[in-house]
């Protein structure tokens, strides 16, 4: 049987409370997601919906005291079964991460060149000279023309956009097969954002890498991904192809998100979803979205909906057919 590149199967994560005796707080609830080779999956959700915690689980970097249930499989192999050495090799060679804030994720005392080659040299993937050459080539391929000069500079000498390109290069250094991009453009200004996204998309396509692209920007996710997964309160509420979700959302939360985007063509008040986002541990018996949902019925308050197939995508809602489609805008 052919395995997907990354399979997240029924993942739940509980964190220990801050104080002793606080008990466990659920942050991720029964998340299932697959990323195939060469496929880009957009993971969309509000702050605190568990997107970043999902990537931490994928990297095996959950905070101390966290309990994870469910399976995380990479090429069909369960990551939780890795010992220290295998985990280190998996992180060094198979996955790479691009972070939201490149400046915070670089050691200010290490030059760009040394930063880029350190990981691969430490993992003994290539010699120092080869790594240096590869870094130089990759820097040029992401549009940094004076790569030689940049490599002897320190992170504070580079602009945010340049540094994020450096981070993309860092992610590509070890030729991983899966890239986790955690809001890679949020810290950049809009013009730089589109450049960085274009570069990232190009690199992913050229190398046919799998990517999990995390963002709270639905349009951005749609632009770069093949399929979308929408998260709410630690659980995935809708998961399917970009087209299906964009054209006809079947979960009221997705529909709400789509309706709340600003429009380029008409001037009107933005539509907001009433209420505030819940955290996963606040969810009682019923549907997490019930308190904010225009379609909520008694059943939604009593019974938590599970993911099921509706109109060519998976959705966790009791009333998927009643979801109002967002008004079409002229393209």
């Amino acid at each position, binding site marked *: 049987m052919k395995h997907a590149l990354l399979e997240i199967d029924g993942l739940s994560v509980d964190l220990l409370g801050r104080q002793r005796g606080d008990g466990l707080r659920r942050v991720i609830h029964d998340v299932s997601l697959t990323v195939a080779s060469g496929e880009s999956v957009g993971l969309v959700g509000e702050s605190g919906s568990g997107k970043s915690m999902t990537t931490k689980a994928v*990297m095996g*970097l959950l905070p*101390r005291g966290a309990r994870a249930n469910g399976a995380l499989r990479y090429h069909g192999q369960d990551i939780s079964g890795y010992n220290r050495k295998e985990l*280190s*090799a*998996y*992180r*060094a*060679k198979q*996955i*790479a*991460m691009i*972070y939201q*804030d490149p400046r*915070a*994720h*670089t*050691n*200010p*005392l*290490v030059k760009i060149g040394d930063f880029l080659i*350190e*990981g691969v040299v*430490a*993992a003994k993937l290539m010699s120092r000279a080869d790594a240096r050459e590869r870094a130089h080539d990759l820097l040029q391929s992401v549009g940094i023309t004076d790569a030689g000069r940049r490599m002897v500079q320190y992170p504070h000498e580079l602009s945010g956009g340049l540094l994020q390109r450096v981070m993309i290069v*860092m992610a590509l250094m*070890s030729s991983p097969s899966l890239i986790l991009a955690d809001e890679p453009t949020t810290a950049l200004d809009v013009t730089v954002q589109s450049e960085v996204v274009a570069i990232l998309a190009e690199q992913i396509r050229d190398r046919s890498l799998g990517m999990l692209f995390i963002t709270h920007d639905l349009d951005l996710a749609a632009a770069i991904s093949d399929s979308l997964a929408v998260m709410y309160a630690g659980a995935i509420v809708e998961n399917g192809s970009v087209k299906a979700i964009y054209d006809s959302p079947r979960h009221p939360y997705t529909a709400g998100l789509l309706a709340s985007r600003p429009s380029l063509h008409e001037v009107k008040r933005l539509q907001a979803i009433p209420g505030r986002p819940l955290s996963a541990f606040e969810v009682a018996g019923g549907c997490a979205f019930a308190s904010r949902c225009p379609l909520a019925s008694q059943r939604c308050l009593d019974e938590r909906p599970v993911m099921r197939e509706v109109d060519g995508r998976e959705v966790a809602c009791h009333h998927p057919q009643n979801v109002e489609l967002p008004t079409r805008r002229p393209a």
Partner: protein
Amino acid sequence: MTAVPVSGVRLARISTAARRIDPILATAGVVCALLVLLAIAGPWIAPFPPNQTDVLAASQGPSATHLLGTDSIGRDILSRLLAGARLSFLGPGIIVVLSTTLGTLFGIACAWWGGFVDSMLTKAFNVLFAIPGILMALVAAAVFGAGFWAAVLSLSLVYVPYVARVIRSAALQERRRPYVEACQLAGMSGLRICSRHVFGNVQPVVVAQATVGFGSALMDFGAASFLGIGVQPPQAEWGLMVSDGRTELLNGALQQSLSAGALIVLSVVAFNVLGERLSDRTGAGR
């Protein structure tokens, strides 16, 4: 003529750089450097051999031959101060190197592993905090015999928790910085992240802490010699010289105790000021 604006720019740069230099830091730095230089060159520039006695010229006040006078058996005090500077600086130097190395290792280990390791080491430090340095030196002298190494090793041990506590908190801050996670994700080992990344970023704190530590080590080491559990006579050492001169104080010959004591005070103040200014500059005092 083209050289004129260039040199003008250079001058302007130099003067802004000069204005940024903290005069107190600079003074303390110069004094410390001079003292260290004296300690290194001391025996060569001393006018007399430090242990040469001249009973006929005992307990003399300052004169043209003996600039700072002589002690009770006619040894030249200036020569002894210069020769003694070596031991007086070597002792604290070794103490600082040993305690800083161990303290940094333990501090980073605490911050990196946290949990059980952290709480055990922290408890061990708290026990050590309770023991005064001189008491530990007394015990070491009783067990191993009084001498240079007994004082140096016992004081090194006592100084470890002071260093470890400061480095631990600095390393904890570094540990939580996102780049550490990025390093982990690059598949680097904990040892590598600690030695290359975390240590590099706490280094200024280490240097500042070591400088302040040198001042207090100098005083404690001098005190150990003064009490007779450190450097032994007839070797020249400042703390020992203060002690030697006590018998003559009643005869009105202040020169030995006073000059050796003044040098200890000067060194301690200079190194403390230097260390504190350094830690202010590096933000280590946060």
